[in-house]
């Protein structure tokens, strides 16, 4: 048996081993590293009419860990995480800021009036410009922001209680201790 005929199978074994490792140990939906530990991009937005002060880059550095939640009144998946956010607000676990994405002022205000307002501050990104700077893929997305206004992590899709415990709680504890 000549060795060179085994080159293809050896190459494939290498590829397969790497894919095996990737399947169990890597998560392709994780936030790209270029965003982590970087200050949030610069922006300044008007609030949803009647819902608290507006939102700008400097408002994110609050001295504690907060959440920046991207939401919209047209977003059905946002309804899934909304009750949990109301619960977080009631327990005063963490402050949540709302980035209203590609919505209308009227629509957003009605949505918050009907379902309740979990947000300390809101900002309206009517055209989605700020969303582009944050690298928003879709709604909902939730950014975890450090006490000095840097991005710590991003969660794509609705935040579930499980996900909160596994990905957000450790960051809260770390900052608290």
């Amino acid at each position, binding site marked *: 048996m000549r060795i060179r005929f085994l080159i*293809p199978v050896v190459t494939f074994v290498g590829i*397969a081993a790497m894919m095996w490792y990737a399947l169990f140990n890597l998560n392709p939906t994780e936030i790209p590293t270029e965003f982590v530990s970087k200050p949030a991009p610069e922006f300044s937005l008007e609030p949803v009419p009647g819902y608290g002060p507006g939102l700008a880059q400097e408002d994110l550095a609050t001295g504690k860990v907060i959440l920046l939640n991207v939401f919209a009144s047209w977003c059905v998946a946002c309804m899934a995480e909304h009750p949990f956010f109301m619960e977080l607000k009631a327990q005063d676990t963490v402050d949540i800021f709302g980035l209203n994405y590609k919505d209308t002022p009227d629509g957003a205000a009605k949505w918050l009036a009907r379902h309740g307002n979990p947000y300390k501050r809101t900002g309206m990104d009517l055209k989605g410009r700020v969303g582009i700077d944050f690298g928003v893929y879709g709604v909902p997305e939730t950014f975890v922001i450090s006490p000095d206004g840097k991005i710590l992590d991003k969660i794509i899709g609705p935040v579930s209680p499980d996900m909160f415990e596994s990905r957000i709680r450790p960051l809260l504890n770390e900052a608290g201790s």
Partner: protein
Amino acid sequence: MVAEIGQFVLILALITAIFQGVFPLIGAARNSQPMMRFANNAAFVQFAAITAAFICLTVGYITSDFSILNVANNSHSLKPMLYKISGVWGNHEGSLLLWSWILALFGLAVAVFGRNLPDSLKARVLSVQGLVGVGFLMFILFTSNPFERIDPAPLDGSGLNPLLQDPGLAFHPPFLYLGYVGLSITFSFAIAALIEGKVDPAWARWVRPWTLAAWGFLTIGIALGSWWAYYELGWGGWWFWDPVENASFMPWLAATALLHSAIVVEKRDALKNWTILLAIVAFSLSLLGTFLVRSGVLNSVHAFATDPARGVFILMFLIVVIGGSLLLYGIRAPMMKGGGLFAPISREGALVLNNLLLSTATATILLGTLYPIFLDAITGAKVSVGPPYFEATFIPLAIPLIIAMAFGPFLAWKRGDLAGVVSRLKFALLLSLLLVGVIWWQQTDTPIMALVGLGLFGWLVIGSLLEWTERIKLFRGPLSASWRRMTQLPRSAHGMTVAHIGVALVILGITASETWQTEHLGVMRPGEIVSVGGYDFRFDGAETVAGPNYDAVRGTFLASTGIEKGVYLYPEQRRYSDPPMETTEAAIRPMLSADLYAVIGEEDGKGGYAVRIYHKPFISWIWIGAFVMFLGGALSLSDRRLRLGAARRARQQEAATESLSGAKG
């Protein structure tokens, strides 16, 4: 009820596939006729069973039976009928069912048309085909069952991703799968040949039509996909080097290489081991392409919902099929005897060069696609390898390939005469240099890559036509003699010329549209006029219109050159309700000289709209070229020599061809 019938026939198909995989293999080893013949019956039953399952799922979609989980997740009662039907394969489970169905269809084709194949070869081919089917059916039944019920049934479905509600995309997967699965046949032939321990020209004569057919379908499938990206994603781009696109491009490159190396096996009885390896690699890349996006290993905009259980199954399947076949190759291939010898400068030599360049290109794309995983695994860094990498590696490989494409067909088998070919091609060289010179004279700041691209276009078109006219001895004698020669030339020779010209047209389209595209991005108010690419675009305002399952803002543009009457463009921004999602419907006026392309976006609150207008010269030629390539493949496929069951007659025909090309060399 339909779901239960579907489930039942799928299980039946799996059992049949297991029998089809095992018994003929044993029969071929023991030389037992009944066991080998069993393969034919099994192929038929398997096809019938999967057809029935496919019909069951289709009925579920047409009748909007939301008690079937798959239908509830991917359909909606308001959806137009075309998309209810295309929804059958527009999702993970259904697309796998389509895959298995085509696999069974091709297996049946071998069983029916392969009467003149040696019994043992045919039995082994069908058996390998059956074993591949076992893997797919197990994957469907254990991890991705399309017939799963949901209780209680929802009142309505959650809809198909609106981006996928599009005629171009409705037919993109079936063509792609016809291509992927077509390569399964060449794979089965390769494995059967390794087991038998012999490859002869008759084997190549069987492999070549299947490769050609698979290649043709892949060409159409990829072209449809890029056309969809072009008009649906709204940025005017048509190729993004996305993992999913690469996944279909790699098998295409490998199939292109296989297509050419199989010629050498057929004509010269050489390159056998290499051709077998290519057949294995081409199908392995098809499997990788089908599965990579479903496994959760890579994330992509096209990715189907991922599930770790599926990932494990997929990897096991890939390891068994690809690893197993490559191991078999490693053990058996050294025993194959090599065939005819040839000098480096010869037709064979040119085809080897073609193969080297194509497989290097495939390898670099594979590397670029998998590199993010490797880097993440080793260093934990997240990167995305984008177009810059692929352009920097693919283009330098494509340029010598295209230069050689004009040379190769001129070279004689065994030993070619390079000086003679150069002197015959000097006309093509002169004309293409003249073309480059004229363009440079017109516009001295033309980017160098544009000049290279257009030079290659001229070189390949003129070179291909020269070779064709030489074959029929045009203007070397009476026209009637040339006509006679042309009609006597094998169709595969015409097919080659046509396909090569198709490649040249694609190069023209890419080069011209990348170089001379002009655009206007900004806010426009009704009545405003902007000038893009020599056209005046007048914005006549926008209105809200209602579609069957969406609302849309539709803009009106009038594009005119001032000479003609002008054309209206109606781009739309659609907002679908189920699932809630926005899509951009670009308005495109395709013309041979350029495409006019308009997109309407958000209102700015003061009566203006964000718009994007592009003028893209010659971009249609990318898809026209792809279609011409497909035609070339189809023309070759219709060649008598390759026609299924024409092996004996082919030998006489081949003798005639040989004397024809002998006269030339």
